[in-house]
């Protein structure tokens, strides 16, 4: 018994990486952004929906009820999108960083496995609310909060895995504990990372509400104006708080990783700087929208600002990962044999699938709303 002579990061197998790293990275970042936007609707929209439902219980607040109805009807679709858009980045992550990701997943063990039943329960919860909300009575509120609890738990498990995979120095000690499930609670980046992302989800949930108000302002002008301002309140208020979380996250990073953002790596410094600027500008615009008599132009600008912020922050997250990988001298798979035919086939089918989805959704939206009022769009 004499310790571990081999390094903790597994070695690549005798199978080549089937694409250049830049393609896999590009798809990882792009599909993760899609996942993030849908996931933020789910987490943020659920929180806003539950709070709004509570506020709406006081009489004379029809807009609250209308917003809750829309969020409730749209939630199963948003969750389907979250899962679907979540599959792709997980796939590309496994090719690029599977040796770290599989290891951290095994160490999390049952916690990681628990994501599957948790998603299923929450998914059925959202359908129950969407299909039976009228007959659920007070149970509806409990189910709302239960699904939120599950969503934030799932987020926490993901934050654990994504942070643990960057800490191979902890792998051995965790494995030696002999447990079949372990959380990465001792990592100083875990809590700020998790809170920063969760608050961002709530803020972006607010932006979805404002966006919805923007879309239906002509058809339902009074509700549209209200929803734009209401969402803007959520966005600007939560983002103000989240600024502190972001800086906490930044300063909790290991010194070498944090240093990347202070000049030595221009891309890292640029995306962080632009991200903070765009985030603060968007927050200001949305704060103004929350109090403006005609918020529509401001909300439009806010949505644009938010998209810039999200792109920057996803790249910042990537730079954090790159910093950690550099610190541990992580070597990419040396044998690369691109499957160009399959890559081309994928791109063609992606475009075809996206076109089919656009055609179907457009047909549904153009067909108008049924008399029952059910359905999200």
């Amino acid at each position, binding site marked *: 018994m004499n310790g571990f002579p081999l390094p903790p990061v597994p070695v690549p197998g005798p199978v080549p990486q089937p694409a250049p790293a830049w393609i896999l990275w590009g798809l990882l970042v792009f599909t993760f952004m899609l996942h993030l936007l849908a996931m933020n609707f789910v987490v943020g929209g659920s929180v806003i929906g539950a709070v709004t439902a509570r506020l709406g219980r006081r009489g004379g607040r029809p807009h609250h009820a209308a917003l809750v109805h829309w969020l409730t009807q749209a939630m199963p679709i948003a969750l389907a999108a979250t899962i679907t858009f979540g599959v792709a980045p997980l796939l590309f992550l496994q090719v690029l960083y599977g040796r770290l990701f599989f290891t951290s997943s095994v160490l999390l063990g049952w916690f990681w496995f628990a994501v599957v039943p948790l998603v299923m329960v929450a998914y059925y919860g959202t359908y129950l609310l969407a*299909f039976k909300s009228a007959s659920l009575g007070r149970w509806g509120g409990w189910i709302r909060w239960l699904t939120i609890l599950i969503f934030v738990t799932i987020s926490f498990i993901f934050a654990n895995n994504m942070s643990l995979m960057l800490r191979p120095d902890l792998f051995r000690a965790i494995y030696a504990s002999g447990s079949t499930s372990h959380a990465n609670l001792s990592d100083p980046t875990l809590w700020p990372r998790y809170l920063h992302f969760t608050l961002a989800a709530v803020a972006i949930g607010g932006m979805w509400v404002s966006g919805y108000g923007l879309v239906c302002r002509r058809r339902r002008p009074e509700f549209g104006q209200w929803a734009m301002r209401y969402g803007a309140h959520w966005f600007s208020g939560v983002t103000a708080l989240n600024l502190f979380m972001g800086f906490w996250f930044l300063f909790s990073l290991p010194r070498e990783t944090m240093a990347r953002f202070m000049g030595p790596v221009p891309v890292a410094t640029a995306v962080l700087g632009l991200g903070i600027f765009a985030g603060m500008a968007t927050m200001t615009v949305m704060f103004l929208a929350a109090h403006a008599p005609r918020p529509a132009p401001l909300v439009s600008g806010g949505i644009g600002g938010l998209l810039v912020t999200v792109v920057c922050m996803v790249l910042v997250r990537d730079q954090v990962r790159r910093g950690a990988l550099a610190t541990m001298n992580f070597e990419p798979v040396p044998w690369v044999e691109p499957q160009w035919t399959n890559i081309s086939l994928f791109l063609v089918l992606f475009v075809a699938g996206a076109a089919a989805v656009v055609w179907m959704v457009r047909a549904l939206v153009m067909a108008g709303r049924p008399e029952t009022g059910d359905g999200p769009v």
Partner: protein
Amino acid sequence: MNYPIWQVPAPGLLIALVSILHVFISHFAVGGGLFLVLTERRARQQNDALLLDYVRRLSRFFLLLTLVFGAVTGVGIWFTIGLVHPQATSSLINTFVWGWAIEWTMFFTEIAAAMVYYYGWDRLPARTHLAVGWIYFIAAWGSLAVINGIMAYMMTPGGWLTERSFWSGFLNETYLPSLIMRTFVCVGLAGIYALLTASWSGDPRLKAKVACYAGLGWVLPMAVVVPLTLIWYLMAATGAGIPAAEILGADGTGLPAMLKALFTADGTTGYPAAQRAALTSIAAAGAVILMTLFLVTLRRQNYGPIFTGLLTGLSLVAVGGGEWMRADLRKPYVIGGFMFVNGVRLPPPPGAIRAPADVQVADPYALDVLRRDGLLAHARWSQVQSAAEAAAHQEPAARAEALFRTGHELFNLACTKCHTTDGYLGIRPLVAGKSTTDLQTILSNLARPVNREGQETSWDDPDLRLATWRGRRMPPFPGNQEERYALAVYLSRLGGDDRAGFEGPEAQGASPAGLDSGRELAAETCLLGHDPEGDWPMAAMVKGRDTATP
């Protein structure tokens, strides 16, 4: 070895549980899509409001079952195999990431189409609604066609073993029979789900209509086509080197021999787990067909959820048994001819595509390397690095203890993907009363490389077959001689021999030649599988023989 081990008991059962549930739902997700769109078209053409209303209600059930349970258990398989078998998952991902990416494009199209189809009932023109239904079905079937290639590859990797190319692995020997078989399973399951949903209706006219339509048009085609494709599938697998006849305990490679073996197997030949799974699947499928015929002919207006629930449950058993048998046919590989269930890889055959010289990396988890260097030398997550160290202790009690601990570690590394100590495939009853010498002999003979003619060959033979110990479909022991002894000590102690490990150095290294060292040893060794509680009880084999007959 390369990855940490998730030390849950019988992890393979967890994969089986999640996979079988997913397969059951996902096949319905494909067949159900076709059922919905064809039934909707039929209802509209015949102006049948009753049938149209039924399809509409079925689509909600479909949405709730396939989008939630089906999709999430699909992701669940991925989570589970990543936890239980990261080596194999990593290998599959690197080989087939573009297959999965292509499947993902179909997945998101399918999900969107299912939603638009459901929400579009009152909104879309009939023609558009039907078009959305067709988009759903095409995407769902495309998804099946892709995943089927990866699953078939895991059993029969085709030319991939030497060419390492996506398409040579994907379009392998069992791809087509498997795809057609699965397609008809999808069709049959759609009919069964249709009967299940119709059984809740209080309208006998609707029940009769669905019983005839779904029973005759959907379930029975499955009953006719699936056995035919099963024959094709088994023949294709046999042609690709899978010893299907041997596993099923048949005395010939033809289908009649295999079928006969299934119904007459007494556990003395073949692989009992696979035989049980196959027989269970066939029996359940037969019951489904008979119950469907009974329903269509005698009870078409009067059947309830209990009857159709039983029908659905039996379908699950049939599908589960089939999947179980498929997994058993693949054993002891997780990826045929490439990786054993315990993550050990075979050395590549001569002429196989390898990494260019500038990035050439020796595979430390290849069988030849592990046998040369020792398993523990490459066990990244083990604190025990050498069995020789344990055997070198001078004091007998300390040596025995060190050997036991080392053997335990080796058991974790090489055996726990399938075996538990006392639970599922528990090892303790199998090694009860065995000495370290017996166990070393057995470990040396778990699997041997033979060619198509059954003659001894090398592990990198491109036409490799496996001769496994008593047909148990076990991988070869992947360590060196000292490790084999340490594992034998651990197993012997588990089996009740408290003196195991106290022997002198001569106890280490019992060679396979020990098999021939005498009737006593051979008889004792055979008891591994022939205990009264074992897979092949000796009593059944010797029944009616006199004491003079060995």
